[in-house]
Structures are given as C-alpha cells and as structure tokens.
C-alpha cells in the first residue's frame, strides 16, 4: 500500500512552487530555510505518528504551521538581539528530524519482519 495521495500532494506542491512568479527576497531566505526545516520535522513526526497509530490531524496541521512560523520568528528575533538562535533552531530541528527518521526506520523494519514471520507461519500451517 503506497501513500499515493500525499505523494501527489508533494508533487503538486513542488510544481506550484516552481511555477510561482513570486521570488523570495534574499533577506528572508535564511528564515525560510529554518521554516522549511521545521516543516520537514513536522512531516516526519506526522509519518512516525501514522506508523505508531497515534496520529492526530489537528496536532500535525497546527504543529506544521506554528513550528515553521515560530522557527522563522525566533531566528529573526535572534538576528535582532544578536544571538544566533538560527543555529539553535537548526540543531534542534536537525536532531528531531534524525530521531523521527530513526524511529520511522525502526518501525518499518519491525513491521516488515512481523509481516514476514506471519507469512511464514501461514505458509508452515
């Protein structure tokens, strides 16, 4: 079972984004990158939740937008205050992304093994 609808969403999003005539002003690129990182973290967290059956759509959606916005705002605030919160955000979200990816991997592998053993059991029966 492949998640066709989400993949389609991603492809359409990339297509729309590349067809926008709007160009990001260079000063906002830094904050946009942090927002993208936060969004990636949210997406992986969502996928992890789906696999663990603890998924909540409201949490994902709010998390996605607030994380992105807050990350960008914090980075901006850090720039204003002379504190490089930018790097803190990169660190935090990077760590979380890797944690999420690791648990996704764990889950996929364990579920794959469980499937295989159950299939073998059915065969041996």
């Amino acid at each position, binding site marked *: 079972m492949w998640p066709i609808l*989400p993949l389609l969403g991603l492809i359409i999003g990339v297509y729309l984004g590349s067809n926008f005539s709007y*160009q990001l002003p260079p000063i906002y690129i830094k904050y*946009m990158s942090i927002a993208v990182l936060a969004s990636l973290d949210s997406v992986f967290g969502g*996928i992890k939740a789906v696999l663990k059956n603890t998924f909540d759509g409201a949490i994902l959606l709010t998390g*996605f937008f607030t994380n992105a916005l807050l990350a960008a705002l914090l980075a901006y605030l850090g720039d204003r205050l002379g504190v490089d919160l930018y790097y803190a955000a990169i660190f935090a979200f990077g760590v979380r992304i890797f944690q999420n990816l690791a648990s996704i991997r764990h889950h996929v592998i364990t579920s794959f093994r469980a499937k295989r053993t159950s299939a073998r059991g059915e065969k041996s029966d």
Partner: protein
Amino acid sequence: MTKMRWEIPITIVLLCLGIMLSLQFQAQTRIASDLTLQRSETLIAMVRGLSEKRQKLDLEIIDLRNQLNSQLESSRDEETLLDSINLEMGKLQIVNGTTAVKGTGLTITVEEYMPIIYTDLINIINELWNAGAEAISLNEHRITSHSTISVAEDVFSDSTFNIFMTINHEKLEYPLVIKAIGHPSNLEKGLTLPGGIMDNLALFNAFPEITKLEELEIPAIKKPSTYYFMNEYKPS
C-alpha cells in the same frame, strides 16, 4: 475511513512543504549566482578574467576602428578619383562633340542666291577655328575632326542644276547656317579682317549675314565615331 483520517492532513502538509521547498530551492540557486554572496577569491578571479577580456575587447575595438578608418580613406580616395574622372570625361565629351553645348557666339547665314561653293564653307569654318571658336555646327551638324564637307551630283534628277553641297554625306538645305561658340567679336573680326574671307567673298558678290548672339546652342554629333584599328602608342 480511518485511512482517510491521516491521509488528508498529511497531503495538505506535504503540499505546503512542496511549495516551500521549491521556493527555497529557487532562492538558493539565485543566491549561488549572486555576486554579493560569492567568496572574495572567486570574485577576484572573476574580476581578473573580466578585465583581461575587457582589455582584449578594447584592443579589438581599436583594431576595428583603424580598419574602418583605412576603409573610409580608401573609399574617399576612390570617390575623388571617380569625380576627377567624371570631370575629365565631361570635358572630353564637350571637346569631342558627344554632348550638346551652349554659349556666346555668332551665326553666319548663307542664302541660296549667294554664289558660294563648298570650299568657301570650309574656309569660313577654318577661319572660325583660327579665330578661337570652341564649337561649330553647320545646319545642326556638329563639326568635328571627322566632318566632311563636299559636293555631290544627283544623277537621277531631271533638273538642270543638280549639283549640291553635302555635310557628312547629307544634302545641305538652304539657308545654310553656321553656328560658332566663342568670343563673338573675336570671331567676327577673324571673318571680317581686311583681305579676309569676307572680303574674298565680297569679290564674288556674296555677303553672308553675320549675327552675334548672347546664347546659342550647338547639338551633339549624331553618330559617335568608333575606333577599331587605332591604339595608343608611346615612343619610349
């Protein structure tokens, strides 16, 4: 339905993520090609390369300008040459009689009753040349080095008087009009000086009428001569 519960939010989130990713990607590629964010070493190398290129192009511009100047000069030379050739050709045409000319001069009219033969016409014309005439015509025939003035006899005519004068082998009709361009008084004096051609003709009771004119036209020759056997020869 449980499946749909997680698919829709994830799809929305991924859609937004896709838009953000591609925007960010575009912005980043723009930054990579933006000069203000390049490393100074790269910038120095670029400046060096560009200034070298610029020098080369400057040299090329100078080269091309020189070429243009020389071309212009040569074309100017050619133009002046062409102008002078045209001028000379115009002069030669006037002298050879291949163009019609006009100027001050006089006309000499000879009526049929005057006892004048073709040698008298030749004498008058010679006298005009001597007096400084620049162009002469006889009955609208331009007189050139190839003109012939002669007599002919119409053997088929029943009339008793069937001898007539010719110019360029065409019959001369009366009144004969000789036109000459030159200084009018000089030409007249050349003809009427004592013992001159007019005095000679007066002996035979012929008094051609001389009229000085402020402006008269002399036509071009009707058939320009062609040369087949004559070649230039320069004795060394």
